[in-house]
């Protein structure tokens, strides 16, 4: 059974204070690892897909990296508008169509 665990559950940062969110996963065969951002009362917003160990992707202040067992979402010099819940999910080769298994999320709060 695919499993995803995110840590920490909640993270409070000062504006400009860089940090990382962790996503540990267990999957029979990784089809892809996905990062989403979710604001209160809204659906998850797609950020990145990573497919193989060593892959990195960047978008503004966010950088996602992938190893064989975990992924990190690095946030550089965050701003208050980066405050949200960040969700990690895996797709397994066991399903051809991309069913996702999500972690519980990390609630990020950035104080001005």
């Amino acid at each position: 059974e695919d499993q995803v665990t995110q840590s920490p559950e909640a993270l409070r940062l000062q504006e400009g204070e860089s940090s990382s969110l962790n996503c540990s996963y267990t999957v029979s065969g990784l089809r892809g690892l996905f990062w989403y951002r979710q604001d209160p009362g809204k659906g998850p917003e797609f950020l990145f897909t990573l497919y193989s160990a060593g892959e990195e992707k960047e978008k503004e202040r966010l950088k996602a990296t992938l190893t064989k067992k975990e992924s990190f979402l690095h946030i550089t010099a965050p701003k208050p508008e980066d405050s949200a819940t960040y969700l990690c999910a895996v797709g397994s080769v066991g399903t051809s169509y991309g069913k996702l298994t999500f972690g519980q999320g990390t609630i990020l709060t950035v104080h001005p």
Partner: protein
Amino acid sequence: GAGVSQSPRYKVAKRGQDVALRCDPISGHVSLFWYQQALGQGPEFLTYFQNEAQLDKSGLPSDRFFAERPEGSVSTLKIQRTQQEDSAVYLCASSLEPGDEQYFGPGTRLTVT
């Protein structure tokens, strides 16, 4: 362009009532998913459609849950005889092709009283 839309955004049902939740995916997207999200948790898979075919319904919690996508575009998730434990946000997502990144709608928050 238009994203995934869902209606209603909020639904309050009395225990035992039937409800129907609608999803309009992004035009041309082959794959459509339904997820259930409890407060403070990540979304959990309910069911998957490829065009009009329901290929996986392994996540549906009970036979009170039923989903359809008759013409391969709009989908409806129906819950019969609602129970308090059905209270959650129901999210719909679509992807262009199977395995692609999924784009989510805003969700329907269902409260069963």
